[in-house]
């Protein structure tokens, strides 16, 4: 979707502000926000794609005025409500009032090291052969879906070159919406800066994205 998260090439946000010796967390609640979010996702009710979509679906004014972990928590509340784990009444009261759906699993402290070390690989076999090979010229599609997609706006309807063919990966555009993993081949596609940004672009710049096969057409 053309949400507030799709930031590539937007202007007006001001300079990057690197913080010297930055701590991992800037407030105690950020630690809990990270942990609550990971524990809740470990229940297995939603995918990383659905959680990304919940974050990008925040109202733009809300997204841009929220810190990173605030975005996480706001999206997490949406997911927890959607999947029946908390109710609006619970959140309003700040207490557990309504009964919750049954989770697939609850992450216990003793299992944390193994679960984090395992991660969530999302490469999957694809039955068909890759449509493209390294060196092929491709054109990205021009589309503006209202649902989740991982083709950034700046890289739509652009001509690029396949640099690498990766594995098959879960397709986020359907997986985010409970429509299945539908794995596809993923490619690294390289664009000249001038193709993307046009007049005045840095002539030494190339930008690459990792694109699912259905984002691409032969050029």
């Amino acid at each position: 979707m053309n949400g507030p998260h799709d930031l590539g090439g937007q202007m007006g946000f001001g300079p990057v502000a690197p913080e010297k010796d930055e701590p991992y967390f800037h407030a105690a609640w950020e630690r809990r926000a990270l942990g609550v979010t990971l524990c809740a996702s470990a229940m297995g009710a939603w995918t990383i794609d659905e959680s990304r979509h919940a974050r990008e679906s925040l109202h733009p004014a809300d997204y841009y005025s929220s810190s990173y972990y605030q975005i996480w928590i706001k999206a997490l509340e949406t997911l927890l409500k959607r999947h029946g784990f908390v109710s609006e009444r619970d959140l309003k009261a700040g207490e557990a009032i309504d009964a919750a759906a049954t989770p697939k699993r609850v992450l216990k402290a003793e299992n944390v090291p193994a679960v984090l070390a395992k991660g969530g690989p999302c490469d999957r076999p694809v039955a068909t052969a890759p449509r493209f090979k390294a060196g092929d010229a491709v054109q990205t599609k021009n589309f503006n879906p209202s649902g989740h997609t991982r083709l950034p706006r700046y890289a739509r309807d652009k001509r690029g070159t396949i640099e690498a063919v990766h594995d098959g990966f879960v397709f986020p555009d359907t997986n985010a919406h409970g429509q299945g993993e539908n794995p596809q081949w993923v490619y690294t596609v390289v664009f000249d800066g001038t193709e993307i940004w046009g007049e005045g672009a840095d002539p030494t710049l190339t930008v690459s994205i990792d694109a699912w096969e259905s984002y691409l057409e032969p050029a």
Partner: protein
Amino acid sequence: MSHDHDHDNELDPFAARVRALETILSRKGLIDPAAIDAIVDTYETKIGPRNGARVVAKAWSDPAYADWLKRDATAAIESLSYTGRQGEHMQAVFNTEETHNLVVCTLCSCYPWSVLGLPPVWYKAPPYRSRAVIDPRGVLEEFGLTLPTTKKIRVWDSTAELRYLVVPMRPDGTDGWSEERLADLVSRDAMIGTALAQEPQQTGEPA
């Protein structure tokens, strides 16, 4: 399990909101507060940029490892036991005399947690995510890094589940250094591409 770590945030409305959510979920038996402690401890004290620095130092020291890292970074990094969440599928990109690599996630905050730890705030914030792809030289200037105008810039936007590790160029004057000493020259920012490896004299050790 004690929860005294939240006490300093009683007056912050967002802290209260997170605390309420944690309370609701733990009362319902959906989360284990001790698991949160374990997760935080992992990312605050166990997994950080030193993992990545050791990967880079090994690549600098061992051409066969560097070649493996180039071909199959996931396996080469896994051989050092740096595996896990947000590092399931890795790609290493090597800086050269001709090209400097820079990594960004314009759509969210994709980042190789298993080798660099949790991302810094600037990496996740709009100024970096918006400008890294359109004005990387301007962004690098803000990190104090001015590249020659002839140096090509390659920006890698993490739009899928591949996570990138920039392998900076090995500084001159480090012949014969141990991997441990070399790793000290490799900062987190160098492995994102917003810095270069430190020169030997910058570490305060004799070259």
